[in-house]
């Protein structure tokens, strides 16, 4: 699934696109607000759905090669976060759906867990 489709399914605002946006092919998604759980369970190239907006999350994204991040529940990251995301080429999507609904919609659209 490409990121345009992810954005479409989640009725999401695309806050930040990366240079490789068109080429990102997503197969898996993980929804979590706990960094250690993300570190424990993400194995394949997986997009992250979260309500956490602290800048430390950027490090987690780097360590796990997470190709894109979706903020749920209408959360919006700080300018500092957006700047850090730009530097590592991390696409950011924003959706007003809750974690449960956002994960459900992506699962129904074919993304695995």
């Amino acid at each position: 699934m490409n990121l345009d489709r992810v954005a479409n399914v989640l009725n999401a605002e695309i806050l930040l696109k990366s240079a490789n946006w068109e080429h990102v092919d997503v197969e898996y998604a993980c929804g979590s607000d706990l960094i250690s759980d993300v570190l424990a369970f993400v194995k394949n190239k997986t997009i992250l759905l979260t309500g956490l907006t602290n800048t430390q999350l950027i490090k987690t994204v780097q360590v796990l090669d997470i190709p894109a991040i979706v903020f749920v529940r209408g959360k919006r990251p700080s300018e500092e976060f957006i700047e850090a995301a730009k530097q590592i080429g991390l696409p950011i999507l924003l959706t007003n759906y809750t974690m449960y609904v956002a994960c459900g919609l992506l699962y129904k659209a074919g993304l695995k867990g």
Partner: protein
Amino acid sequence: MPNIKYVYEIKSRDFMSAGDASAYIKSVLKKLGLDHEIIRRVAVAAYEAELNIAIHSVGGVLTVEITPDYIDIIGEDRGPGIEDIALAMQEGFSTAPEEIREMGFGAGMGLPNMKKCSDEFRIHSELGKGTKIFMRIYIGGGSNEQ
């Protein structure tokens, strides 16, 4: 390939820097062309070690040594030490304070996750002095990960 050794000073509660060492090590391993899964395990183990030092101690050192056969990751901190290691190794057990949990840390998965990522895992802790964690990951496979 000669052995490569990196030593990083990890500061207490410095969450802007915690993860920098792991991200760098990861980029080195990628350049060396190592298997994706080995790189992931080393990066996660090193990152969890960095986070643990930043969260629980007054500071410490992360050492990573890359050899042709294996990668050693050693986290050594100065701090309160761990009272009950068996309890600390249980998934979900955490002594992280509330302000740390609010940042998304402190799920009680750090130590179990480090063990899961390594082929060899040893932990030694002395109350009032600190904790030392040794992890070895073999490059040619041999993962104990479930």
